[in-house]
Structure formats: C-alpha cells, structure tokens
C-alpha cells in the first residue's frame, strides 16, 4: 500500500488520433473507473497527422494519478500521455466569455474592471457587453466573481489548455 494519500490536482496532456469515439473512450475511462475530471479541453492540433490534443485536469493520490496515466496510455488510439504537473514547470491558460447586462454606473464599472483584467469587449449593445478574458483559472474566476455583482447573465469557459515551458514538444 502506498503511504502517500495526499490528493492533488494534475494537468494531463493526451495526444490522440482524431477519430470518431476517441473522446468517449477517454471520458468513459474516467467515469467507468471513478476518476474525477475537473476540466477537459479537446481540439484537433495536427490536421496533417489527424491528431487531437486533450488536456485534462484531474485530482487524485499519486497512485491514482499513476493509474490514470497507465490507463490512458493503454487506449489503442492514444499516442502520448504526459503529466505536466509532475514533469516540470508548465503554463496553463483558460478563456472565458462573460455577458454582462446593465446600464449606468454598473456598466461603467464593468468596463473599468474589464480593462484592469485586460479583458476584451467583443460584443457591445447599449445595455450589454460580452467580454473575452484569458488567463489562469484563478484570474478568470476572479473576473467572473467581480462581474457577478455587476449584472453578469451568462458565462462560457473553455477549460484549461496547458503546455510545458521550454523548447521541448509534448
């Protein structure tokens, strides 16, 4: 038995063949074996080789994380699995679209805060804005928290994409 039972979040990058059902395989593995998914993003990243990159943030003890890595790697269409959290420094970014409705002082305050957070206005009406904010999950969350009191009516988040620092590819 492993003594280390501390639960920590890990960011895992998975390079997969972009084929039908691949996301279901990955997600099904997590649900079927009772692992957590905190965040999941997926998109094609290499059209020529038809590869997609899945970024998953999951939580577990070191033994569980090791098991998740091995289980992912076992899937036939999975090319590579890397635990970015373990393998060294990495960067994480998330994007959110935040819709705020309102007029007068609240509207001005929303715009001012957006500027502080370097959020872009990507849609504007006389009584609403849609902001685009990018950053770490913490920053995005803080921004959303502030907008809540200023008339936020809708929010969409991409989930986390991540990459190791330095010149090495996945």
């Amino acid at each position, binding site marked *: 038995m492993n003594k280390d039972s501390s639960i920590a979040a890990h960011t895992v990058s998975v390079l997969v063949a972009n084929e039908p059902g691949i996301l279901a395989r990955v997600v099904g593995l997590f649900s079927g074996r009772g692992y957590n998914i905190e965040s999941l993003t997926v998109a094609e990243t290499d059209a020529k080789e038809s590869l997609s990159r899945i970024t998953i943030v999951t939580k577990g003890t070191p033994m569980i994380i090791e*098991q998740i890595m091995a289980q992912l790697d076992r899937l036939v269409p999975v090319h590579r699995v890397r635990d970015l959290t373990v393998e060294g420094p990495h960067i994480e970014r998330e994007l959110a679209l935040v819709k705020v409705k309102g007029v007068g002082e609240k509207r001005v305050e929303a715009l001012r805060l957006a500027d502080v957070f370097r959020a872009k206005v990507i849609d504007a009406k006389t009584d609403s804005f849609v902001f685009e904010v990018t950053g770490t999950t913490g920053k995005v969350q803080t921004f959303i928290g502030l907008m809540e009191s200023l008339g936020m009516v809708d929010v969409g988040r991409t989930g986390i994409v991540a990459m190791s620092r330095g010149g090495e590819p996945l």
Partner: protein
Amino acid sequence: MKPEESATTGADLLVKALIDEDVEVVFGYPGGAVLPIYDSLFKQNRLRHILVRHEQAAVHAAEGYARSTGKVGVVLVTSGPGATNAVTGLTDALMDSIPIVCLTGQVPTHLIGNDAFQEADTTGITRPCTKHNYLVKAVGNLARTVHEAFYVARSGRPGPVVVDLPKDVLMNKHDYVAPPKIPVEHKSYRPQTKPDPRKIEQAVEMIARAKRPVFYVGGGVINSGPKASKLLAQFVRMTGYPITNTLMGLGTFPASDKQFLGMLGMHGTYEANLAMHGCDVMINIGARFDDRITGNLTKFSPGSKKIHIDIDPSSINKSVRVDLAIVGDAMLALEEMIKLWKAKQPKVDLKALKAWWAEIETWRARNCLAYKTGGETIKPQFALERLYHHIKNTDHYITTEVGQHQMWAAQFLKFEQPNRWMTSGGLGTMGYGFPAAMGVQIAHPEALVIDVAGEASILMNIQELSTVAQYNLPVKIFILNNHYMGMVRQWQELLHGGRYSESYSESLPDFVKLADAFGAVGLRCHEPDKLDGVIEEMIKTKRPVVVDVLVDEAENCFPMIPSGAAHNEMLLGPDDKAGKVSEEGMVLV
C-alpha cells in the same frame, strides 16, 4: 474508389481476411444485418462455422477455443440483440485477457442513429468491455481494419476486439488488402514486450538474496505461450523456491511438483496463503493482485519486497505498491532471468531456504483440503477426487461454471500443463463453462473435455445442448448438484445468519431426461460407491453426456479467507469460527 472488375463484396473481403488471419472456425448466429457474410460463408469451405443457440455462448465458445489453443477466437453475430447478447462474453474475455475478434452486424450506414430495426450503438455499448472496437464505415477500410483487429486482440495483454460492420459496407465492392507481410508498427499502439535488462538484473539479485521467497504466478504466463510455462518450471526448479498459482495461472507449473503450494487466494491453500503472508521476496509473474488474491490490502504480505512482471503497465501499482516493476512479456523476462541466473550462479542462502521450506511443510501438514467423508452422501470434493483419478492419464481439458464447484475443481483437479484449464476468473460468469467446453472440443476433437458445473450455473446456457447434439461434440457436463446456488448459500450462512434468500434451486429439471430430450446421454449418481462406475461410463461414451451427481447440500468450500480478512486469518473448515466480519468486510463481494 470505383469497384474494379476484380473487386469483391465487403462480405467476401471479410471471409478472405479471416482466412489470411489463419482462422479455421467461427462461432456465430445469423441475422438480417450479417446475411451477406453468411452468404459468403456458404460459398466457401475454408472456414468452419459453428452455429450456437445464443450469442453469449458464441463468445464463451470462442474463449474456450482461444484459451486451449493460444489462437484468436472468432465470433460472428448480427446487429442489435446479437451484439448486446455478446456483451457478457466480451466482458468476460476482457477481464481474463482472452484474445477474441467479435464481428457484429450493423444497420446500413445511412440508417445509423435512426433507431432502425435491430439497431444498437454497438461500439458505444462495447467500448468499456473490449480492448478496442471499430465501426467500419467504408468497404475500403474493411480488410485493413480486420487485420488490425487481430493484431490488437492477440498482442500485448490480449483481449476482445469488436468490429462493427454495417450491411451496406458488407455489400459494397472493393479490392482486397492482404495483411502486411512484415508487421508495420501501429501508429499509437505499441505494447512493450521486451523487459528492461537493468531491471531484470535487479530482479535476479533480489531473488537470489531472498530468505523466504515465493513465486506468485498468474494467467499472464499462460497468455505468453507454452514456452513461458516451460521456462517458468525451469527457473523455479533452478532456484528451489516455492510457487503458488492464481486461479488463472493453474497449469503454468506442474501441480504434482513438490515445489507447488497449490492455488492461493480466498479459497486457496493454507500453505500458499501463509507463504504469501510471510515471504520476504514475492515474485509476481503475470498476476494482477486481484482482490480474490490479496484479501485485506492493508494486511497483505506486510513484510515482503515485491517484484511484479506484467505486460500491462496499468496492472502495476494498481492496488499493491511494488518495489520492482518490470513491464514486458513473461516468456522474455523468464528467458533473461534464467540466462542471468546461469551466468551469475548466485549463492542462495540455503540454510534460510531450508528453514522456510520446513515452515511451509508444517503448514502443508495441516492438510487444509481435508474434508469429512460423507457416509451415504457424495461429498463434492470426493466426486472431484474420483473424477481426477479417472481422467489423470487421459488427454483432458477442464472448464467450469462459477461457484463452489469451480473452487473445488481448482483445488482437487491437478493441472500439469498450461491451456488445460478454462474458467471464468475475473468476471465470474455463470454459464461460461459449457459453451467454453464446446469451443475446446472443436479445437481438440479427440480430447476428453469436461465442464465441471453446478446445477444452477448449467441452466444459464443449457440451450447449447442443442449445439453439441448438432455437431456431436462429446463434451461431458459433470454437475455437482447440491440444489443450491452453493456459493450464495455459503455466504448467506456465514454472513447473513443462514437466511437462504432465493438461493435454493427450486423446480430443477430432470437432467437425465433433459439430456435425452436434446439427444445427449444423461447419467445420475447419488451413492458414493456407484460414482466410479458412472464416471467410467461418462468417459467411455463418445457422445455428449450430462452427469447429474447429487452431492451433500450443506457442504461449504474451505479453506476460506472471509471478506476483509488477511491471509493469516483463514478459516480452515466448518469448525473454525470466523471473528465477526467487519462492516468493511460485509460490503465486499
């Protein structure tokens, strides 16, 4: 691509691909979506088709075929219910790592998602119960996909692979693509078979330094091929160390050898479990620390250094943290370890080893499989002892259903060679043994194939009596009939105050008449002194035989590690009282 003059239909391509994959027999059941395949089968005589009576049985039969030959078992079923009926068999094959290719029919591509007649989301349903699955959407991909399916099924840790075939794909035409002559590397699937030589060296050092060692060997060695078992026996004898087998590993080491401690685990022998508990170096080859083996994880073999050799990295450190993990094929690992052992001629601590063996012999002297003889009634253990006496010098294969009879068979039948013992280990599928025996018999027409069964399990696939009658497969069904779902009854007795809720086998058929109705031979025995005669009769009858052996209804399977207990907390017999099973133990199965 435009169909050429020479182009053939998808169904014909499929048959061609199967032949090129050295398939000789397909277990299946026809239906609307696979009619083109059945038409192609009709027009050729290279592939033999065995018509089962239920798709679950087709998969189990293919499993029996695969496990007794080492080849890939092939299943052919139709869409919808054909595919869903196969799911239990697929899950069974996944849990026990059996190479199966299951071809399922599908509604034509333009109807997929339309809730068409006999449509099911087969790839969706079978995703978690296969090693991999494919939906072939264009005839141009069909042959290549089938070849890949065989490669995935048999390589690495083997398992079941489903290829879903829409009907229009089977009817469209395309040129054939032969399997690659030199295996091309798969783009993403590359199982590691060659063990790391540095780790092999470390393993040999650890093994050589051990004072209280034990080999703990599982089905991975069987899946690695017969040579792995030969090498295992060689290595174990070179070291002089004790060895125990999992349920799946029986036959990897000759049971008659003095170094063999018998099976370990929940119903394993006293000596095997105590050796596991007290060892200082555990050498796990091709086993996966299953919960039936470890019992209470926190108390599992507390003082040992553990070496784990497995072809599947996800089996390593899953439930038990090991000190040395070696990913690779068992045969290759054994080969390297033997080479190194010979080269190094390590000095084993013979004095310590002698003391260890002396301790093991005191455990062995407890004779943990002893049972009270039954007087007028047949004890199930006695029935199996007599069965073994009559078959031990024959060319025989054993399958089982699931329950008490299965554990008794594992304890009382002795296996000297691999691939002779087929039982549902991981999934524990009642109804497995009889169709598996059919598959074994198809592969070994002259051999004696016996399904050791219980009266409850056998009814789960009893319809296959019709199949064995059709092909005159001389499979023997040896029913230990105690009128109970015995293992359920045993747990109810030990854990639920003897409240035998729904575990009595009410309204059983007359098995002799039942056999007769299907064109098989039925025999019955309820007196111990008539048993030898009945077994002899069974063996000499060259037809399918059902033997209804009426055994002691109250007999329990011992030894037993109760739920939540450790290896050194075994119950040896009915007079051993378990401490109160903890709440934690109660929730375990």
